[in-house]
């Protein structure tokens, strides 16, 4: 351990480790201890019940759909913000962070009202038979909202760093604009795009607040995985709650590991 001549290592490191242990690590380990009290068969019965599987499918499916939508919309918005000059650009740029700043309960409340039968959007969608509240579609829409900034904010600096030299070279060699985008620009932004999509997915998988307002929370149909934990807690089944929490923790750590690999890959030429 090499120490420079700056004092305070013991104090600051001690405080850091103490807080980390008390606030994060010890409480988090309780999930493992509590689910440990279950037998293997019990654990499996809880985390792989038909109701739980339906909830995982909805959570991961809707999060994947939201991440895919964000890949397209985020790519478009990041491109426009990085490459074009237009009136209101700075304003648009500031608006992108709304989902980060707006509490999820407010997002859930306003989305449930926008897409309700008499809401601004619902009054046009309902006659077409599109139910965007109390449905799986509703879950997809709010997850798209809460994870929207990730792809935009990951791609923006990459587009800005990319410069126009490679494009100009491709152009002077006779490539069309579409060819240039597909063969020159897209491959160089792909790692960053995937990182942004993975971040959006990770955020959407854990989301709870906004979804409970819009989904209707019907078991087997519109119930998301974090709600399973709430259901177990209402029955005072702490071991069951921690078994499902354990599954969700493993899933989110796996996604995080994937994100780390992706961002290493995207920086491979630096």
């Amino acid at each position, binding site marked *: 351990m090499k120490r420079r001549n700056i004092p305070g290592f013991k104090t600051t490191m001690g405080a850091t480790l103490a807080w980390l242990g008390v606030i994060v690590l010890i409480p988090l380990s309780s999930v493992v201890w509590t689910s440990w009290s279950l037998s293997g068969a019990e654990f499996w019965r809880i985390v792989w019940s038909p109701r739980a599987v339906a909830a995982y499918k909805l959570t991961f499916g809707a999060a994947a759909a939201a991440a895919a939508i964000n890949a397209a919309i985020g790519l478009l918005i990041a491109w426009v913000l990085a490459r074009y000059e237009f009136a209101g650009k700075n304003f648009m740029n500031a608006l992108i962070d709304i989902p980060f700043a707006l509490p999820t*309960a407010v*997002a859930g409340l*306003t989305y449930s009202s926008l897409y309700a039968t008499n809401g601004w959007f619902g009054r046009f969608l309902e006659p077409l038979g599109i139910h965007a509240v109390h449905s799986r579609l509703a879950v997809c829409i709010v997850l798209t909202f809460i994870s929207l900034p990730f792809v935009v904010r990951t791609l923006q600096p990459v587009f800005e760093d990319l410069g126009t030299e490679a494009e100009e070279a491709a152009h002077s060699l006779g490539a069309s*604009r579409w060819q240039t985008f597909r063969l020159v620009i897209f491959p160089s932004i792909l790692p960053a795009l995937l990182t942004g999509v993975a971040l959006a997915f990770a955020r959407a998988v854990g989301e709870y607040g906004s979804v409970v307002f819009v989904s209707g929370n019907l078991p087997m149909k519109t119930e998301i995985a974090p709600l399973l934990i709430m259901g177990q807690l209402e029955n005072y089944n702490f071991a069951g709650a921690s078994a499902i929490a354990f599954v969700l923790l493993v899933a989110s750590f796996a996604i995080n590991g994937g994100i780390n690999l992706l961002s290493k890959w995207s920086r491979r030429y630096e």
Partner: protein
Amino acid sequence: MSRTDAPWWVRHFLILSAAGFVAVLLVAPAANVLYEAFLKGPSAYLKGIADKDTLHAIFLTSVVALIAVAINLVFGVAASWAITKYRFPGKSLLITLIDIPFSVSPVVSGLIYVLTFGLQSKLGQWLDNQNVQILYAAPGIAIATTFVTFPFVAREVMPVMEAVGSDQEEAALTLGASAWQTFWHVTLPNIKWGVIYGVILCGSRAMGEFGAVSVVSGHITGQTDTMSLRVEKLYQEYQTQAAFSVASLLLFLAFVTLGIKAAVEWRLRRQLTDAARKPEPA
């Protein structure tokens, strides 16, 4: 304009589509909060807020956010100091551990304190015997909020401290300043904007947190409801007007956060580029 720019109609189409998505996905939800909140006039709006239980929720949310920010401010600066000023094995592991709360679902974040402080645990029983109530009371809400916002200050202060470097501190110490004087008069002015930025992100998230506090609060009206929980309860009780009144306060808070964030971000970026431009001492 370079030769590779797309024709004007392509550019206009792309800009208009992007603006359309921003309008539908981001602006409409925000505008709808204000529309619903003020639909029945300002007196109905104010009546939705000036309710005893709602006012208590505003008070509780502010106190909880203050506690979470204070704890995470001290922790964040200490952790940044320990991580950026020294070399030690396991540094990247420590950073990963600090980031854990970012990747934990809010409901799980609440659950871990129910498991830790609930009556089914040894600690929970002991605390109950001492007549200390943490769960389903303000302390539990404050702890869960602290967990959720744990990495914010550290994440923002670390890169600034790293970019500024330790030369000035070393000079101050050589000239005979004490450790505390050095921190107060040399380090703190340098990392000021990073600290402010982290505090804003931390405070904003703390005031808006829903999932984690929903698990630990117990939902006792007028006692353990935060603003977000109050919005949910009013919505479930079909008091839509009041729900949107309270939601509008959280919306204003979000706008203030975004405004301050934009201003601080600009200063922070300038400081980081200045630090990068500074020639490295040999």
